[in-house]
């Protein structure tokens, strides 16, 4: 058993992939709770797809992926604002049109015959290709995201619970929402190289959605979400090593298993509560 665990650790590639997924798991588990509680899952996926052309262009011209992603997400945000103001359609429809247009343009560039090999990794990710520099950047950005989340924890909780009373509690609701979206964008930027543009939303939403099934308090929810992300991440890398499957996709399959287990436990727990009777008035 120990040999089974230790053998992949003799390979630098696997060790770096494990380190990367641990860093991403901790950050994604924590911010994912706010994404789920603020119902931002669609926004998170849209941010990821909207920045795709920026990532591809950066890869094509040899610029840093982070820079390309940042510019990509800013352009996507500007276009979304413009479309929702100009279009007669509902905001959801306008966002869907802008995001799919951007994503389609990115895919067109990424999959063209003249694109250098490996650029498709931006779609599906390459955890096993994580370099030490990638891990350091992810850890730095992740620490910043966690630090800001820690500072604003109680205020996020207050406006999520009762948005209308935010101003009365001295909270700038609009600013805090923007900060949260900025943190989501930063997390996507560092996670997208490992997990790919198509799969990155899963690690942001999956662990928190699983945790939500089994707890009704924010702090345990965050702890459970991080644990789920780590269990799914590490088991995904091991599965990828032994079964020779794609690392990112294996992590996602692990997340789905965790979610199904949590959902089953959540249904059982809710049934137990109903059986125990309702609270007296």
């Amino acid at each position, binding site marked *: 058993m120990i040999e089974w665990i230790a053998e992949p650790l003799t390979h630098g590639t696997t060790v770096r992939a494990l380190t990367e997924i641990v860093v991403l798991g901790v950050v994604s588990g924590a911010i994912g709770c706010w994404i789920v509680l603020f119902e931002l899952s669609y926004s998170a996926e849209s941010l990821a797809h909207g920045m795709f052309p920026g990532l591809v262009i950066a890869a094509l011209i040899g610029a840093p992926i982070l820079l390309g992603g940042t510019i990509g997400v800013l352009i996507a945000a500007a276009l979304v604002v413009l479309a929702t103001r100009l279009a007669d359609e509902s905001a959801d429809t306008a966002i869907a049109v802008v995001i799919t247009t951007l994503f389609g343009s990115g895919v067109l560039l990424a999959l063209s015959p003249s694109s250098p090999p490996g650029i498709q990794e931006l779609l599906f990710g390459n955890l096993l290709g994580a370099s030490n520099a990638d891990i350091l950047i992810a850890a730095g950005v992740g620490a910043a995201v966690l630090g800001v989340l820690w500072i604003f924890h*109680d205020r996020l*909780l*207050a406006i999520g*619970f*009762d948005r209308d009373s935010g*101003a*009365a509690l*001295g909270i700038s609701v609009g600013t805090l929402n923007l900060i949260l979206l900025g943190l989501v964008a930063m997390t996507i930027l560092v996670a997208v190289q490992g997990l790919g543009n198509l799969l990155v939303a899963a690690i942001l939403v999956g662990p928190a959605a699983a945790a939500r099934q089994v707890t009704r308090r924010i702090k345990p929810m965050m702890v459970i979400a991080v644990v789920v992300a780590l269990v799914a991440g590490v088991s995904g890398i091991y599965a990828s090593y032994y079964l020779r499957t794609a690392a990112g996709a294996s992590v996602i399959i692990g997340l789905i298993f965790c979610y199904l287990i949590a959902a089953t436990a959540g249904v059982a727990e809710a049934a137990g509560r109903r059986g125990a009777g309702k*609270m007296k008035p």
Partner: protein
Amino acid sequence: MEAVGVNPPSIEPAPGGSRRFVVARGLSAGYDGRAVLTGIDFDLRPGERLGLLGPNGGGKTTLFRVLLGQIRPLEGTLELDASSATVPQSDRSRLDFPVSCLDVATMGALARLPWWRRPGRKDREKAAEALARVGLQDLANATFGDLSGGQRQRTLIARALTAEAELLLLDEPYTGLDSTSAARLDRLISDLADQGCAVMIATHDVEQARSWDRVLCLNGTQIAFGNPATALNRKVLEATYGGQIIEIPGDPGHGVMPPHHHDHPADRGEGHR
């Protein structure tokens, strides 16, 4: 309209002595420079319970927002000598949110803290004391969404107390409460007034408002302010509710109620929020 003009404030002594939490004179307020509430003249002293009556869109929420400092008066003067906090209807909050009673009460501390400071141990102790004041010390760790309507309303009052508010603005707190919970909330409001808080209660319930110390009737402008026994006459209620009041058989003159006596969720918002 003379008979329904502004009644002079009562000169009877109030528990707070000469101190006044609120002095409004010729106050107008609105949005984007357009007044939706005009001619507001009233005082509020420590220990007073003020019933705020008016139809939906009559300006109750706008007045609350002025008192909370969220919007500035367009005209007139407003002197505030108390920290204020709002107590919204409990079903406007997310009942599925993963927070305990104590978590919600602790949120009140945010109103006193600079943006970078998080509530600490002392703030949680203060929140626990506030929960004890509203009689919920045994439910501090219960999930907010599991509480009854009355318990949720009292939790939100505890949140305002944690904010150290002396002026509590309650937005239709009786909506959806059964008679036992409503009676308990009544006692709590009176207890808080006895402890020196001033409580403004926005309500559609004219009969209940008769039991408060003062009433302020609004319908885009101030219709009446004063003692409920004199202020809540038929003409005032007709002007407040646009003549659409319902007379209770057997009690002409006094036994009247507005058409929104029982509130519906779709009607709750004001014209401007």
